[in-house]
């Protein structure tokens, strides 16, 4: 029997204010290195750091992380340092999470010149994410010419969104000509937590109606999942639509966009920059874009309270909407840094949701510290789970599957 060649995949997962990374040995999924560069670029009250783990052993490094390129360089430096001490610390392949592939790609791709060229055309589609990820791909392409790269797309899981939810009420000829539809994002994460939830509860995913809340310090989205498929997502054609995020406005009257451009004489680029980079939590709270800073100040700062209320209100609105289209919710999932990290946030989101069958156990919620956990009260009809997401794991699996398909040595 032919033995499978093992490959170490360095997964790079750019959030708008973070860079998560892992070296995962495939097949098998053994994690060799993991880490996260936190508070990259964004205006926050804390210092930028890299949390770096080799075989579970943690090292925290303070660094100046002005942008994602600086974060990647610091990450590669740390890996190179460790490689000198441990032969197992190495990587053979890069795999990137890519946010918005437009109409160009609908599956995981190996990067070559042609793919790079097409990716470049997608940069304006996700003004915050695509350019920074593209920059990292370009950097790896130039600096590591011998190492293959794969891009795994965040949108593929949402190809099943139902037409009544994916269609904007625009002229049909515009929709068709420019491929405008709700694309949805965070698909890698929503898919991962859906599978983990069903595994944890020993339920068949094809029978579950799930609402997944991916609440991050960068982007956030809510996803309605029925029979293992995404049927709606709060993000839209771009990641600007939906919930209020760290610096993104989320849902807004399109008339306001025109008003700003007409009245302020802003260019479309200036307006887009304002809605993507100066709005959301940062826009309302002003002194930080991180909801954890908002929660810390909530009792002493009126603006913090309003920011928190605005954030919670929007998450609750999407949960209720998705509960209506699913008819009943079997599982409500909280994931990513805010979803797993803030009991106050989960409590506020679940408050007075009994009419939808959602009742949180306040004690369990307060005590939660890590891992997969059921926080629902015994009288809750829906299970309420906290599941730390592991997009990198999913990305490594996808990249390895593509690698094996295209390389006879595997």
């Amino acid at each position: 029997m032919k033995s499978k060649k093992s490959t170490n995949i360095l997964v790079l997962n750019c959030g708008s204010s973070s860079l998560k990374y892992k070296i995962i040995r495939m097949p098998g999924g053994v994690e060799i290195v993991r880490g996260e560069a936190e508070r990259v670029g964004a205006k926050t009250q804390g210092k930028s750091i890299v949390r770096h783990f080799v075989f579970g052993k943690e090292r925290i490094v303070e660094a100046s992380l002005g942008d994602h390129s600086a974060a990647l360089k610091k990450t590669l430096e740390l890996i190179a340092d460790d490689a000198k001490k441990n032969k197992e610390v190495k990587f053979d392949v890069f795999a990137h999470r890519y946010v918005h592939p437009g109409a160009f790609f609908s599956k995981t791709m190996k990067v070559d010149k042609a793919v790079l060229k097409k990716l470049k055309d997608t940069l304006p589609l996700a003004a915050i994410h695509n350019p920074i990820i593209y920059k990292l791909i370009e950097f790896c392409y130039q600096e590591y010419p011998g190492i293959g790269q794969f891009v795994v797309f965040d949108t593929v899981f949402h190809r099943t969104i139902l037409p009544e939810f994916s269609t904007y009420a625009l002229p049909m000829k515009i929709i068709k000509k420019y491929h405008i539809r709700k694309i949805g994002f965070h698909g890698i994460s929503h898919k991962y937590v859906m599978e983990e939830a069903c595994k944890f509860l020993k339920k068949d995913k094809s029978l579950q109606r799930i609402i997944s809340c991916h609440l991050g310090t960068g982007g956030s989205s809510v996803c309605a999942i029925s029979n293992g498929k995404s049927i709606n997502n709060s993000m839209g054609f771009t990641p600007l639509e939906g919930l209020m995020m760290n610096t993104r406005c989320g849902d807004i009257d399109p008339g306001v966009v025109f008003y700003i451009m007409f009245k302020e004489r802003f260019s479309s680029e200036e307006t887009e920059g304002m809605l993507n980079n100066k709005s959301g939590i940062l826009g309302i709270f002003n002194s930080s874009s991180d909801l954890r800073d908002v929660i810390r100040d909530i009792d002493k700062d009126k603006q913090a309270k309003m920011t928190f209320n605005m954030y919670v209100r929007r998450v609750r609105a999407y949960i209720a909407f998705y509960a209506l289209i699913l008819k009943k919710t079997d599982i409500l999932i909280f994931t990513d840094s805010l979803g797993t990290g803030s009991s106050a946030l989960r409590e506020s989101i679940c408050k007075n949701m009994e009419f939808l069958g959602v009742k949180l156990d306040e004690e369990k919620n307060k005590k939660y510290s890590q891992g997969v956990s059921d926080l629902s009260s015994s009288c809750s009809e829906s299970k309420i789970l906290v599941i730390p997401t592991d997009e990198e794991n999913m990305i490594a699996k996808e990249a390895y599957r593509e690698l094996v398909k295209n390389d006879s040595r595997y």
Partner: protein
Amino acid sequence: MILVIDYNLKELKIWSFKESGEKSPDSFLIQDVEEIRDNQSLKRCIRGIAGKDQIKAFAFRVLSGGDYFLKPAIVNSAFLDKFEKLIDFLPFYIPSMLEMIKRFRDTFRNTPIVNFFETSFFSNLPDEEKYYALPFEYYKNSRIKKSGFHGIFHEANSGFVPSGDRTISIVFDKQTTVCAIHNRRPLSISLGYTPLEGIMSRRACGDLDPGIVFYLMNIHNFSIYEIDEMLKNNSGFVGLTGYDIELEDLLKLYGKDSKVDLAFDVYKAQILKHIGEGISVMGGLDSVVISGDNAAIFTPVIYSILKSISFLGIHIERLPWIGDKELIRITSEESKVRAYINRMSLSKIIFCETANLLRKSPSKHPDL
């Protein structure tokens, strides 16, 4: 007699009501405002409508009261000064409206004129609903915030159910709006700062990813004017189906034409989104009240929406919903959530409110 007036900058629609509440069989339409360009012609025209009856008041429906008019207002000189301040906010609408109000005032100096604003009801929306997540300092200059719409209908709808009810009020009119109301206070409203936000209409898009605007401008070189025109006038039902026909006629094609099916399915999904938003802020649902000129036409749509959320405890009666009263209950007696159709017209609501106001404060009018 009270005359209720709806002026849309092109034409005036007038309904006359006797004090008993009896309405004239038809509304009167002045198609060209030139017909009433001076005091004499206006007086002649109004006399033609009212006959020999004494006109107790004129009541205008006004689309927006901005931050200034938080309840109905009787015209006097202070009103006119305040109203003029709204010109910056609605530069096309307010000057014409102001001129029309002044024309009535100058012609009928002893007759009170009451103005009802479609936005007043929303003046105390909660902050977290009112504001968009834009840079906060921007509000100080721009005053951008949700102003809402159909406040006259929504407020009247809330009056049909107990104050403690958590109520979803839906108005099916040229615009469709969904409002959550608890203790007579609106807690959410689907329409925002402009009529573009919310639920699609015959020609306008409703909720939209703002990123699409930038995508079309930055990548495909659309001008802002082209997009503005597209979203306001070439989208909605007309855009999705390609049929530029009345919604009543379009609905007849439902089930027979896939484009029409999709358009109504998108429309229903948008309504559901805002119902979801409303019940999330209220923490539940006790009643639904539906009104508006298109409510009768849209009964199959209303039935389909309420049927789809029956798991909330709505036991909807089968169509047709028949009744000779203004308020028809459309849920069964055992239904946990009560749902009603309010068939009272906007003009009747305005008439009733005007009559109430005059009864409460007959001497408030400066010229009386």
